[in-house]
């Protein structure tokens, strides 16, 4: 019987299999950021240990850094201490750091692929749940806790139970105004936020194959929001073209690249490989998605009314009522009648150059509504520079946007970019949990074009029909 992409990577990385079914895996790339690493480095220091493979360990600063032009001076002393701790730790343990002010600094899941660190067939970990993003290249990539970060730093291995496999087939072809963000939100809405717990998802089908690498990353990024261990997409010519292009200092080149591609071509799941589960999502006629509640599974088509009562998308009446109460919405309201106060375009889900181009397509020659604050936050310094080279910054600024520097920004309210209580935000990020973007803030997850259009209209619109 054939093997899946996941099984091929698992097998080639198994160092030791234990009697209870768990496996010690070799880790090819370990990405590190300032928030989940200080305790791990401290553990090494106390035990007198070294980082086993500093050449496979890479650090950046993203979660708590300010994104304004004066970001080099972090005013909050506790945040500053955390950033300084990473600088000190990476010097002491000889780990490369793409820190604040470095031309390749950015969100860890944006710079990994840019630098050529993310490659097909690798195992990759990071103390961050959105590590699943890197699976878009056909890598096995997943988030870990700080104890595990310390274990990987010391041993370059990790002990893991073997997950089950699930194929997610996206059939059909989405129409204009519908993007990969809508596809993954539709999946989460269909199976729920724990729907993929215990599984590694492999996304496939015509609708996945036709996506760019950036769009594939948005899909894999949100695998964790369905509870999955990881999300993966088989590498193909588009993957190889991305790796071969641009300034990617860690990617193979010339003859090494040819040899690598020959290997990568045998990675996709065999035709007779069996998955433990198969889910099919039809993208024909798929509508732009928008979340109405307080988790990413609480999501509807933009042209549907806010649900309630007995038909709240699989949620109990009580849970739906609590979510709607927090969100300040009532059942039956059309999402296209809901006004927004803030629009956030950014985060490891949707802050890549393609996302900014899509937002700029909407914003070009238009201006945000007066009552809306619009933030456009590139995922990396490289994305920022590219956007400037294409003149996108001028479009954003002419539209009244705040054009920022790279960081996690308003995705998670641990830096100066936050919502105030009861502010309503159209956000391209990944979590609409209570308080996620700031205490009392109300988050609606959408695609970059839906977010940009909401900024112009001052409310949600169906971009398939929208005319200014």
């Amino acid at each position, binding site marked *: 019987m054939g093997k899946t992409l996941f099984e091929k990577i698992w097998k080639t990385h198994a160092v030791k299999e*234990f*009697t*209870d*079914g*768990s496996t010690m895996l070799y880790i090819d790339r370990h990405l590190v950021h300032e*928030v*989940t690493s*200080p*305790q791990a480095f401290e*553990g090494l220091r106390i035990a007198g240990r070294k980082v086993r493979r500093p050449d496979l360990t890479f650090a950046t600063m993203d*979660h*708590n850094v300010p994104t304004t032009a004066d970001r080099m001076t972090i005013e*909050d002393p*506790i*945040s500053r*201490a*955390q950033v300084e*701790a990473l600088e000190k730790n990476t010097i002491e343990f000889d780990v490369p750091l793409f820190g604040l002010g470095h031309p390749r600094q950015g969100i860890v899941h944006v710079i990994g692929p840019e630098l050529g660190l993310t490659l097909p067939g690798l195992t990759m970990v990071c*103390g*961050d*749940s959105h*590590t699943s993003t890197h699976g878009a290249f056909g890598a096995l990539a997943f*988030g*870990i*806790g*700080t*104890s*595990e970060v*310390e*274990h990987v730093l010391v*041993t370059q291995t990790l*002990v893991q*139970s073997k997950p089950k496999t699930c194929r997610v087939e996206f059939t059909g072809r989405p129409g204009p105004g519908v993007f990969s963000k809508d596809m993954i939100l539709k999946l989460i809405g269909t199976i729920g*936020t*724990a729907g993929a*717990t*215990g599984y590694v998802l492999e996304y496939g089908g015509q609708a996945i194959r036709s996506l760019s690498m950036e769009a594939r990353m948005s899909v894999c990024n949100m695998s*964790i929001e369905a*509870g999955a*261990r990881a999300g993966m997409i088989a590498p193909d010519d588009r993957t190889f073209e991305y790796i071969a292009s641009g300034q990617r200092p860690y990617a193979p080149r010339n003859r090494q690249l040819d040899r690598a591609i020959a290997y990568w071509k045998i990675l996709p799941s065999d035709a007779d490989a069996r998955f433990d589960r198969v889910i099919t999502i039809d993208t024909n006629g798929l509508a732009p998605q928008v979340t109405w509640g307080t*988790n990413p599974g609480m999501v509807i088509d933009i042209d549907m009314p806010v649900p309630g009562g007995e038909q709240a998308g699989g949620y109990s009446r009580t*849970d739906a009522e*609590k979510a709607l109460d*927090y969100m300040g919405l009532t059942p039956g309201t059309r999402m296209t009648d809901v006004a927004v106060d803030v629009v956030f375009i950014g985060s490891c889900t949707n802050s890549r150059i393609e996302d900014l181009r899509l937002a700029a397509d909407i914003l070009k020659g238009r201006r945000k509504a007066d009552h809306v604050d619009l933030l456009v936050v590139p995922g990396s310094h490289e994305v920022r520079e590219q956007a400037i080279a294409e003149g996108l910054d001028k479009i954003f600024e002419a539209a009244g946007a705040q054009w920022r520097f790279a960081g996690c920004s308003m995705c*998670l*309210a*641990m830096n100066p970019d936050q919502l105030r209580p009861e502010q309503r935000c159209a956000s391209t990020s990944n*979590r609409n*949990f*209570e*308080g*996620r973007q700031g*205490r009392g803030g109300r988050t609606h997850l959408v695609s970059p074009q839906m977010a940009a259009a909401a900024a112009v209209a001052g409310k949600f619109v169906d971009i398939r029909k929208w005319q200014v």
Partner: protein
Amino acid sequence: MKTFNGRVLFLDRPDINTDEIIPAKYLTEISREALKPFLLEDLKLDGFDPATDIEKNNVIITRSNFGCGSSREHAPWALEANGINLVIAESFARIFRQNMFNCGMMALELPGDTIGRLFSQYSAEPAFAEADPDTGTITLSNNTQTEQIPFSISTFDRELITAGGWLNYADTKY
């Protein structure tokens, strides 16, 4: 090994996420003890007041998908800083569950109908729970009743608890 007993805090909602367990704005703290005052501080549930309910309880019983969201080990640390080493739920998010055992703490799963029954039988008045990883039983009691409920735990997870977490476990093995 940590202790796994105490008065029970019932949290009656599924999908309690890591941002609710410990909001991101506190993740800049470098020490675990600094997280103590902020556990579940913004969680809004009928009859739950973090200011008074956390201090007197050392066990949580809750619904499905507890700990969904981020990979932050700060979530178990915030529980541990408050003396809560045992969470019993219908199910857990994968990374949170692993982080609990990696910290030498227990995240135990019971069937949904059992959890439902525990809520209806025990949540109205003070209840106490204790989990014994060696016998694989939870003892639950209040003034009028007591019962033992079996749970399953893998050899690896039991060894993690016995060692007091993964890093201690790894130290004894290799």
